[in-house]
């Protein structure tokens, strides 16, 4: 068979189909699961496939999705962030209390909340890179500190937030919530930065091998610290979104987001050792986790089984990736 020059170039860039599949096995696996789950659920419960339910699934995936973006950056850079759930809680409660006690415009309070998230991430990053402490221990310690801070802010429900926050959650264009459109834009931006900018390539390089990255004149400390700042901002944004969802500052806000985001990243094929994985896969994993929760509710499956099935997906996913890795 004779190939044209353009076809030869394309083959050289993409490699043969089997090679492409091996490199993107995780992404294919996740999206295949999403499609299969969707088809099965829609055949059992016709209401599941209605456009308003699909929009609802996307809206329900926002908090986990935004936190997972930050977690993906940190994991790709060779770290881990256990403090994201508590960062979301502290910022959510802080914003709620500030809104209840002051006349500061909501938009300014939101910006301040995001800045607090960035500061928490910066502190994590500095402690990890400058002192050389283990990321897991530092961020776990930060989780403990922030847990106390959250209780100091309030140990009970706060005042109801202004209507502006409800609008953030409820506003829609037709059946599509505006929050979902913003969410998709954030994911697109996160993909662009990771895949089309020098910083994104540096994150992969630092996570793959810090020593090699350093020899390549990459500022390892700055790159890693910035991943934690991104994670802090994402967690803060999730906390503010969760506040708009409940309308009241809740001391239980953000519970378990650290584990859910790590699980989503792992299912999506992000290596927990850094440097490998695709944010596209992580997005699919967020959809998978959210959709499975939605399906279980539609099919009235006990919560125990939800946890069991999610755990099984993680185990199957990790096994598949390890097998492919060895091949």
């Amino acid at each position: 068979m004779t190939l044209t020059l353009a076809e030869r170039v394309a083959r050289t860039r993409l490699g043969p189909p089997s090679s492409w599949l091996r490199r993107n096995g995780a992404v294919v696996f996740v999206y295949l699961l999403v499609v299969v789950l969707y088809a099965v659920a829609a055949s059992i419960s016709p209401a599941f496939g209605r456009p308003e339910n699909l929009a609802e699934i996307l809206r329900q995936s926002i908090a986990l999705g935004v936190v997972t973006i930050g977690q993906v950056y940190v994991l790709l850079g060779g770290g881990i962030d256990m403090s994201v759930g508590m960062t979301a809680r502290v910022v959510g409660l802080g914003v709620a209390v500030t809104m209840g006690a002051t006349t500061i415009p909501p938009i300014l309070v939101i910006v301040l909340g995001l800045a607090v998230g960035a500061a928490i991430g910066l502190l994590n990053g500095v402690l990890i890179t400058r002192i050389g402490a283990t990321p897991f221990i530092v961020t776990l310690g930060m989780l403990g500190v922030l847990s106390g801070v959250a209780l100091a802010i309030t140990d009970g429900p706060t005042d109801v937030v202004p209507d502006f926050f409800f609008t953030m959650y409820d506003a829609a264009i037709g059946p599509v919530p505006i929050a979902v459109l913003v969410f998709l834009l954030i994911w697109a931006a996160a993909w662009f930065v990771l895949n089309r900018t020098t910083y994104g390539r540096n994150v992969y390089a630092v996570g793959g091998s810090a020593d090699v990255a350093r020899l390549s004149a990459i500022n390892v400390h700055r790159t890693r610290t910035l991943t934690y700042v991104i994670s802090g901002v994402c967690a803060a944004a999730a906390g503010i979104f969760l506040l708009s969802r409940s309308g009241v500052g809740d001391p239980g806000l953000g519970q378990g987001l650290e584990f859910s985001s790590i699980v989503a990243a792992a299912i999506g094929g992000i290596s927990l050792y850094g440097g490998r994985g695709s944010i596209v896969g992580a997005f699919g994993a967020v959809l998978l986790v959210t959709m499975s929760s939605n399906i279980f509710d539609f099919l009235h499956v006990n919560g125990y089984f939800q946890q069991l099935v999610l755990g099984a997906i993680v185990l199957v996913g990790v096994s598949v990736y390890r097998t492919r890795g060895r091949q």
Partner: protein
Amino acid sequence: MVAALGLTGCAKEAGQESGGAKPEKVDGVSADLMADADVTVDTSKYKKDGPYTIAALTQGPFNGWGLTWDETVKYEASQNPDVGELLLLPSMGDADGQITSMENLVTQKPDAIMLNPQGRAALSASVSRAMAAGIPVIVCGNNVEGKKYVTYNDVDLYAVGYQAAAKLAERLGGKGNVILMHGIAGVDAAEAWKQAAEDAFAKYPDITIVGSEYANWSVATGKEKATALMAANPQIDGIWSGGSEMATGAMLAFDEAGKPQPAYGVDNPTNGFLRLAQEYGVEFDAFPDPPGTVAKACLETTLKVLKGEPVKKYEAIPAEGFNETNLDEHYVPELSDDFVGPLVLPMEAYIAAGLKRK
């Protein structure tokens, strides 16, 4: 965050918008709930023909309280021809998961939602959204902020906590050293009971609170905390426990240490607490937060709403206290320590649910 950011110059004046203000407590009861008990809700707009599809969002059977609740709802629904389908959605204590379930139910459109909320604040907007979608929400077993529901069915949690503390103070003659043990920090019931106990003991100036600890509604953590508090305070005359699991742990700790048992004031007495109280001959006052009674009443109220019958904004469930003198009327030896009384179903239903004492 306000203080940290130095924004006190923008402090809001009193009286400005504060929709989630803490409910008022007067003389050991929730004054706002007492007022709601006199408010009649017209439910004619929810009236429809049965049999009905009813969604029950529950805590989940991860402890005896939740298991007793779920089994009561399932049994009562199965016996009632007006209930066509029961969609039981246990959240396993996860408020965020429960919000998600509420959102999913708005899409599924059941005839009514029975909600045992896992977060007083967290579920507030979800209740509003379901009501706005035309689905009546009946809240039971914990309240939610904002009162956007049709009706709330429960004991007065604050009053239960207050009375347990006040009875303990009276039993001690208004003086002595007491320790307080609470559930999970930040959780609605734990904080309501904590506030109630502190308010009650504040009326007895000769009672000293020598320790106040969260022990996560766990027997093991309660035992651990009681052991530490015993070491720090040689004289402990009374223990108040917001949820009897911690008091159960404390009884075990005192027994192991070979010390005489103090007097106890507890909320939500489990069968396990009653068994040990009987075995050790403990003096106590207990005030129930009865899952079976509340769950049964909640289903009955839900059916009333769907039939268009008027209900009260707050349907009060009586919570009569008891002590060691009538313990036998409340302890059920056939059932396990996890069971929380009183019995509202036939014994076989509890045994089938796995609550038989082994």
